[in-house]
């Protein structure tokens, strides 16, 4: 496929747009105000219409001014009334966005029936079609994005304080009110520029989806922004290509659906908080429990019948685990040189003996701890120890030994090995 020159600047605009909306979106995300973006995107409509009615032509500059003004007005109304505690925030957000949009619809229907109301220009703002992006539009996007990024990098420390600790910010002698105002102004301007390619309803997706995706991959603020920007750009590029190649696919929704796909993948496979990371942690813990259970049973069997070799049937009886599971665990333990395993016979290596002794020790230590410090009755100790013994790290073990002064006997008068 040969790319038209216009395709290039569409892609470059998408790059700018993705990065700057990810920056502002991450700030919203961490301030837990993701839905303010929603109000802004809906509230630009009346402003754009008014600009059109006044100047009677599609002029990106006046659209920018008009749309941003009504968006800022809406944001201010929400914040002011929230401060005054007239209504709760959710009502203010939902009512403001729908009423502003309603007024926009009203103007739009008025424009539609005017003789000079060739309103195709405004229509594009609502659903977005990147293929109609002009060079001028691309330049405006670039200018606003560069301004946002520059301000963000220059004021990074102030922004960070303002995002994460607004209380602390209030105690500093720094004009955070200006930070806030600038933030809203640029948010509105960016929304206006982004509408061309994404459209009204879906511009808010550009703010909220990338940071939500980043939530599954990075924990740091900066790292999150970088991931968000990157993902946003790749998805935008993909969406744009899709809408250029496949007929009848509008750009905005194509971008959002690509982002949605990435979100689903992140939800399932992400590094943090994802389904995979949870299952993995769970499986790792279950493996640890089973391994330690096998080791402990081996130790107890050898202790009670005074032999060096245990066969797998005795182990099966003692652990009540399936043969296949036991076999799997034994192979793992053998790899770690804790046991020798052949012909269904198991022998503990010296290292294995030490490890199994340790589990028994932890179990009995915890029982002793519960009985001494929490004064639990004797019959309640075992169950809790069965659970907690798998969580005790060497550090906690040392701590337990010290506070209890290296005890010799557990509450049931068994030796602590």
């Amino acid at each position: 496929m040969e790319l038209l020159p216009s395709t290039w600047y569409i892609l470059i605009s998408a790059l700018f747009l993705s990065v700057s909306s990810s920056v502002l979106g991450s700030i919203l995300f961490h301030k837990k105000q993701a839905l303010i973006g929603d109000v802004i995107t809906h509230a630009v409509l009346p402003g754009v219409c008014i600009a059109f009615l006044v100047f009677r032509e599609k002029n990106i500059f006046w659209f920018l001014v008009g749309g941003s003004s009504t968006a800022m007005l809406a944001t201010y109304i929400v914040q002011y009334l929230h401060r005054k505690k007239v209504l709760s925030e959710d009502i203010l957000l939902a009512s403001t966005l729908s009423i502003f949009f309603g007024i926009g619809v009203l103007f739009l229907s008025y424009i539609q029936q005017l003789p000079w109301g060739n309103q195709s220009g405004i229509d594009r703002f609502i659903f977005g079609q990147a293929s109609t992006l002009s060079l001028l539009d691309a330049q405006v996007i670039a200018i606003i994005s560069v301004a946002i990024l520059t301000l963000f990098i220059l004021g990074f420390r102030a922004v960070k304080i303002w995002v994460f600790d607004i209380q602390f910010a209030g105690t500093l002698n720094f004009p955070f009110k200006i930070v806030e105002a600038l933030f809203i102004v640029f948010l509105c301007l960016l929304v206006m520029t982004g509408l061309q390619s994404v459209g009204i309803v879906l511009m808010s997706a550009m703010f909220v989806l990338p940071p939500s995706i980043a939530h599954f991959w990075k924990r740091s603020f900066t790292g999150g922004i970088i991931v968000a920007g990157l993902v946003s750009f790749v998805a935008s590029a993909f969406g744009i290509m899709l809408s250029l190649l496949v007929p009848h696919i509008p750009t905005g929704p194509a971008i959002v659906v690509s982002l949605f796909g990435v979100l689903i993948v992140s939800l399932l496979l992400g590094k943090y908080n994802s389904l995979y990371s949870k299952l993995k942690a769970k499986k790792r813990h279950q493996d640890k429990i089973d391994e330690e259970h096998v080791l402990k049973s081996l130790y107890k069997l050898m202790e009670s019948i005074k032999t060096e070799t245990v066969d797998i049937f005795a182990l099966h009886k003692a652990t009540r685990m399936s043969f296949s599971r036991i076999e799997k665990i034994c192979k793992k333990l053998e790899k770690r040189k804790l046991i020798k395993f052949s012909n269904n016979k198991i022998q503990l290596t010296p290292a294995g003996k030490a490890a199994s002794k340790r589990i028994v020790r932890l179990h009995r230590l915890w029982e002793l701890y519960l009985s001494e410090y929490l004064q639990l009755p004797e019959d309640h100790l075992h169950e809790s120890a069965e659970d907690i013994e798998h969580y005790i790290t060497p550090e906690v073990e040392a701590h337990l030994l010290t506070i209890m002064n290296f005890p010799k006997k557990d509450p049931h008068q068994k030796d602590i090995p």
Partner: protein
Amino acid sequence: MISDWWIIVNSALTAACCGILGSFIILRRMSMLVDAISHAVLPGIVIAYLFTESLQSIWLLIGAGLSGFATVWLIESIAKRYNLHEDASIGSIYTSMFALGIILISSLAFRVDLDQECVLYGEVSHTLFDVLVINGKVAGPKAFYLLLGIFIINLAFVLLNYKQLKVMSFDGVFASTIGISTSILHYTLMGLVSFTTVASFEMVGSILVIAYFTALPAIAYLFSYSLSAMLRLCILTGILCAVSGYFIALWWGVSVSGATVLSMGICLLVAIFVSPKKGLLKPWLYAKSK
């Protein structure tokens, strides 16, 4: 003209349907969930429409109901299980569902007579074309009967569960300790919100309907001292806005739904100033009367 009456009646009925459910939504501080549902029923509608080619079929309700449920469930489980803040979860899911709907509409446009504009703003006049004919007599637009049915269902739900809804919205923890199954009520309420959104879809579109669900009850809330008064006032305000909206639309020649939302906006603005409970002018009015 007869059709003018139908517009006013349908518009008022829509307001009433949304208002009585919306009252509980805003009292439970879940307005943004309505925002999410109203956008997210779109794919359900489009898919159902694809099969039935009608905007007044039971399948449309079922399709939308299912996508509404799926949305609420997705939003809540992502927020809870994946540690994502609820705002972010709402924002991510509904925009995605909406985008999916738009893509479906545009890529199937050659088969489906449902355009993007209609989705966003609704088109009242459309609702008048499709009329119900009984024994060869025209008995009014189908949309009216659909809305009436939804209104009766919503009203019945609210009246039957009035006590439970009241306790749950005031004090959810207490509600569950006295054995009210709050999650069943919650999901039923959300399901009805989805149905109502679809039923009023042609009238007002998917964004303006949010105003019917939130701004309208908010006006009533600012003036009422009891839940039942709030519900009644909500219906009354709905009718008032529908009528005034219609006339504004008539005079200026603009969209009826847009004009209705405009009059809701004006009412809300007035309410915010003069509300005897929390109005911005309350200290001033109060000082004057002394």
